[in-house]
């Protein structure tokens, strides 16, 4: 048990260090690298919770796809951090005020926290006994049966996101020349070639 708690503190500490670095790094590329580091630590925390499937998905999806995509975007967009920070000081008081209000609210929430008396009976998805089914199966059972509707609607949301990305960015280039294999194959010599019998001294009229 002591090893588990040591691992917990290690992962949480590293996750916090990583998260702070994401915010405070000057270079956005470094920020993304720290973000990846944070994801790895969060995955470690999931493993400690016994949710190994979620941990692996976190690494595969967030580190493998999302963070790398971030990295590409950050490197390609050439964001100048100094121009982005220009308004920082003017907005700082308002931002700090909102932050303080939120902090006070959070303190109130945690100070007066109570769970509804009926909550235990109402629990949406109680954890099944881990000895009976592995957590991948438990997740699948909820996702594809009970929450199939939400799963499908999320699919439609992604479809709309795809349509949106195409609508907003795709342009049909008029100037580029494309190879059209059908036209090439369909061409016959008679379309392009003309055999002319040239009489001596007359030349050819073009």
């Amino acid at each position, binding site marked *: 048990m002591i090893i588990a708690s040591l691992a917990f503190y290690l992962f949480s500490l590293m996750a916090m260090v990583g998260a702070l670095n994401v915010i405070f790094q000057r270079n956005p590329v470094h920020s993304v690298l720290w973000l990846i580091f944070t994801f790895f630590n969060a995955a470690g925390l999931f493993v400690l919770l016994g949710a190994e499937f979620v941990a692996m998905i976190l690494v595969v999806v967030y580190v493998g796809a999302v963070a790398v995509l971030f990295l590409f975007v950050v490197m390609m967009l050439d964001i100048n951090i100094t121009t982005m920070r220009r308004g920082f000081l003017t907005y700082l008081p308002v931002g700090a005020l909102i932050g303080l209000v939120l902090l006070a*609210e959070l303190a*109130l*929430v*945690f*100070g*007066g*926290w*109570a*769970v*509804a*008396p*009926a*909550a*235990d009976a*109402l*629990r*949406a998805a109680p954890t099944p006994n881990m000895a009976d089914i592995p957590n991948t199966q438990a997740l699948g*059972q909820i996702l594809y*049966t*009970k*929450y*199939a*509707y*939400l799963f499908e*609607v*999320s699919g*439609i*949301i992604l*479809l*709309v*996101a795809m*349509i*949106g990305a*195409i*609508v*907003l960015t795709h342009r049909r280039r008029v100037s580029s020349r494309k190879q059209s294999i059908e036209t090439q194959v369909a061409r016959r010599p008679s379309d392009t070639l003309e055999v002319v019998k040239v009489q001596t001294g007359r030349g050819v009229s073009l």
Partner: protein
Amino acid sequence: MMNAVPDFAPAFPEIMLVLAGMVFLLFGVLRERDSMQLLTGAVIAAMLIAGVLILRQPDTGAVTFGGLFLINGFTGFAKLLTLGGAMLTLVLINNWAQTAGTARFEIPILVLFATVGMLLMISANDLIALYVGLELQSLSLYVLAAVHRSDLRATEAGVKYFVLGALASGLLLYGMSLVYGFAGTTTFAGLATATASGGNIGVLIGIVFIIAGLSFKVSAVPFHMWTPDVYEGAPTPITAFFSVAPKIAGLALFLRVLYGPFGPMLHQWQQVIVAISVLSMAWGAIAAIAQRNIKRLMAYSSIGHVGYALIGLATGTLEGARGMLFYMLIYIVMNVGTFACIMAMRVNGKAVEDISALSGLARTRPMMAAGLAALMFSMAGIPPLAGIWGKFYIFMAAVNAGLIVLAVLGVLASAIGAFYYLRVVKIMYFDEVGPVIERPNAVTGTLIAVCSVAMLAFFIVPSPLVDSAAVAAKSLFPG
């Protein structure tokens, strides 16, 4: 684990619309020529079929997908309103795209998916279902705002809407997570049980965050700041769509969420809604006075109208819900008519948005001026036009629920608001003739005529509409 196939029948209209949307999308992609006109017709036909399917659904209501999706008389009524608003504005959108040469077949499809999102929101019976419906709607709307991507203002509107919308979604999710932490469940039925024994500060803050997120989506003050910019920047008919369909769906969702799962905590959230309502009415009336651009004017006008509709919500009574539904019904017709007028404001083939361009319209285009005047009188709430009846039922509900101060503030705000609506009429009828506005084309002309005549003739047969709104509202109060 129960693995039975859920009952698809209650969600049949939505399933049909989504499938139709995908087929239309394939058709549009595979067809070489631009097929916006054709697909607009197809989308409208699909929406009509969906409307008929909704009408044929049983009045008793049903719950399906493991309690995530609910239909009853109320959802049916709200969905028909949403579909109606979407179809009317789709006609305008197509008309604009064909004349402005910005036709793209994706536009009607995005409108279709946005509408499906709204229908799912209205039917949501669970916080997660609410959220996915809302995101489906919002994401389509962000794209629609920026669809005219060569226009700098439209892209700015799209980005602004997206960033602030994402913030609102964050607030909403934060609130939901607090509520979930309190109740241990996200289903509306479960939440109603959990809050019946009284809430605590945590769940209350959660509800306030949910209210904030939803207020953003219906552009109620103080979460309205995106509205004028987005309304001004987005293409006019798309603004018309924004001002109609999402508002109905958002307000219907507000009713469902606050009367259903959080109904037992009426006295806690009532003050919040009263505050939002008063602020929206006041700001909608005062800030509109200084506007020179008619689309910005309409943005503030719609903020004000949402404020009036929220009075109905604040009452927490059946009468209030009825008043709100009825108000929205009239609001759609008024708004579609007014936006048809704005679309008809073209001088020498170019669209103009300045209110001063309307000067002397009564002499150059008397019919259009008369139509716009009728719509403006209706918005201002001058009897006997339809607008006053919507306000009348809302204020009466507020008085009967003991919210007399709120009703008085509402009347005051509508008196201030009348000023800027009447100013438009004054500009048209008493100012010197300005630029000559072109003759409205067949589509906008017809819509202006139909909407303004509907406003004028409404008082002859008001009862069927009021009654159907009352029947719909009744299903919010089971037992």
